[in-house]
């Protein structure tokens, strides 16, 4: 198991359609590769933490680096972990028309993003708090801690 976190800048602002496409595409691909995590997007700022088996994680980051939709990819952490902390893969952003997204699996409004799972180390949880702050600014206080991945129940 391994996880990677990075921040980056979108080459151009993402429209609702772009975000919709990104969400469905990532949900589909990540499900196939058993990748879980969370992606934040706001005003061209992108941050993502994803976790999974190393055989899936490294090629995914390679694809992310080559993705023409963003640039200035700055890897923050890349290290082995004992277990998953996220139950699935989700994405948090402010769509222009939130109604169109509410029903979508894996979509979160930024102020509904749960606090980092307690299974993360404090350093990693702080990193997620910091990237969320960097992407969304200080207006979205974290929610109560999220339930842990609970893979044993899945």
């Amino acid at each position: 198991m391994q996880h990677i976190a990075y921040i980056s800048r979108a080459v151009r602002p993402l429209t609702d359609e772009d975000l919709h496409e990104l969400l469905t595409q990532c949900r589909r691909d990540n499900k196939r590769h058993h990748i879980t995590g969370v992606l934040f997007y706001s005003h061209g700022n992108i941050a993502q933490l994803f976790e999974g088996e190393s055989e899936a994680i490294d090629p995914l980051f390679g694809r992310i680096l080559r993705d023409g939709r963003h640039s200035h990819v700055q890897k923050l952490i890349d290290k082995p972990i004992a277990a998953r902390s996220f139950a699935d893969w989700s994405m948090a952003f402010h769509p222009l028309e939130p109604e169109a997204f509410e029903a979508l699996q894996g979509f979160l409004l930024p102020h509904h993003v749960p606090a980092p799972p307690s299974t993360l180390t404090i350093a990693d949880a702080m990193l997620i708090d910091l990237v969320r702050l960097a992407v969304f600014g200080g207006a979205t206080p974290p929610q109560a801690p999220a339930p842990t991945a609970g893979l044993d129940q899945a």
Partner: protein
Amino acid sequence: MREHSEQTILRHVPAGVATLQGPELCYGFVNEAMEAVLGGPAPEGVPIAKHPGFLAADLLDVMQRVYQSGRPFIAKAYCLALPGPDSPNRYYDLTLEPFREASEVISGLLLFAVDVTAQEEARQQAHRLEVETRRLDTRLRVLTETVPQITFTVDAKGHYDYVSPQWYYFTGQPPTAAVDAIWPLLIHPDDRLRVLYQAEAARAAGAGWSYEYRLRRHDGQYRWLLSRALPEQLHTPGEPVFWHGALTEIHDQRELTEALRRGEAELRFLADSIPELIWTASAEGFIDYYNRHTSEYTGLTQEELGPTGWVNLLAPKEQAEAARQWVHSMATGEAFEGVFRMRRHDGQYRWHIIRARQLADGQGLRWFGACTDVDDQHRLREVLQTQYNELARTNHDLDTFVYTASHDLRQPLINLRGLFEELARVASFDDPQASSMLQMVEDALAQLELTIQDLAATVQDQRGLSAPAERLDLRSITDEILLGLRMQFVQAGATLEFDLEGAPTLHYGRANLRSILHNLLSNALKFAHPERPAHIRVRSYLQDGQPVLSVQDNGLGMVVPSPNSPGFRPFTRQHTHVPGAGVGMYLVQRILTSRGGHLEVASTLNEGTTFTVHWTAAQPGE
């Protein structure tokens, strides 16, 4: 037949052909092309002047002259204005050729018209282009001579085809200077060979170049310039290739960059030399630099620590709070400060003050932090705190003991006195010294009682040492005390003199002020000279802006070891014949010292004593 076929050929040739006959220049043979030029069929035998078609009068005039002179004439690119608003002008080369009959007399004109409209339009277009080119050229020249850069054109061999006037302004060379020869000489000797090589290599490769070098300015100073040039793209094969380029002065930017780089290197060196943990973080709160001491202390590299790994170094119980505080600082921009235990490479946790502040400058927002090892201080403080607590407790116990002891001793003393009085009343003694003995016992008992009372008072007053200060009226406090000393006052036949105008009030603890005044006044009464009535003078005034109280008597006086440090110790007594426990002045001194003041005493034996109370600490510089 043959003539007919020739006529047919002539009729259809694309050039206009016509014969004009006789001095009247009447139309003879006119082919189709010429009919088009004339704008319709030309009736044979009609003079051309009568039916000129599109031909203008000036041409008819020239025809007459050619006919008369017999010299042929070609009107080149003659413009025929065709009727109709949209008809374009047509251009013809019109050849007027006189023809002669056998008699050598001119009998008419041959007229040829070749349509040269296309050529003429091309020529006019070329002219317009030339004008436009000249305009662009002028614009380019103005621009190249106006921009602050030096512009140049150089050929493949390194010969300068063009150098803008700025080169002459910059170098101070005369306009007649041989640029090719002088330019390399003006390059800084340290850069010269490199520049010449790079330029030649680029020209040989047919590539552009961009390099920096120092060029000598007119004032002799070498200035950094950026030289950039590109080869001409649209050159005709076989013709010499040119490179066009510009020189930009980048001296100031380069110096600034150099200064910044040096400053950064110096700062980094400084940070690496300090035996403290120094680090910087991005605006988002990710640590991007740890100094050398950090890796020495933690035993971890920057990669191992990572952007948030420092939290892992803290004591596990403190991590969550430190993380919360750090995120809060990032969200609000507030400085980060806390005392945390940080793990050393050997596993030992040492106390550190972690501080970080944000700096917003031209390069954006950044955080600068330091972790100061305060472990030794922290441990020392803990030891001192423990010792202080012990001392305070011991002191308190001692006070309690003294108070309790004095209190507990009172009852047996009262009993003792009662018993003694009873004994004196009922018992009779044969000894003639009995009465004086009895008196001595009684005196000793009174002395003991006083001592015990004073001991109790000492403890009580010490407990009031930290009473809150308030604004107090000296006169009214003094009056209260004199009420209590009324008996002694009367006994000593004392008179009092007040002079409180200088400082009538005082900011002090009430119980303390009472205690001090009580001791000073009762002392003055106690040590009154037996041969004269006591006269006490109380003054309150400002000395160097600080309140001072003096109590002067005309009593017994005493020996003062040193006027500034009287050094009163408890239970030390100057006049053993006067009853007292010897704790009074000790108490006064303790109160004063605890509030930053001090006591001065001046005394002459058998003349009197003056106690001067300085309530507050002397100002520095006095």
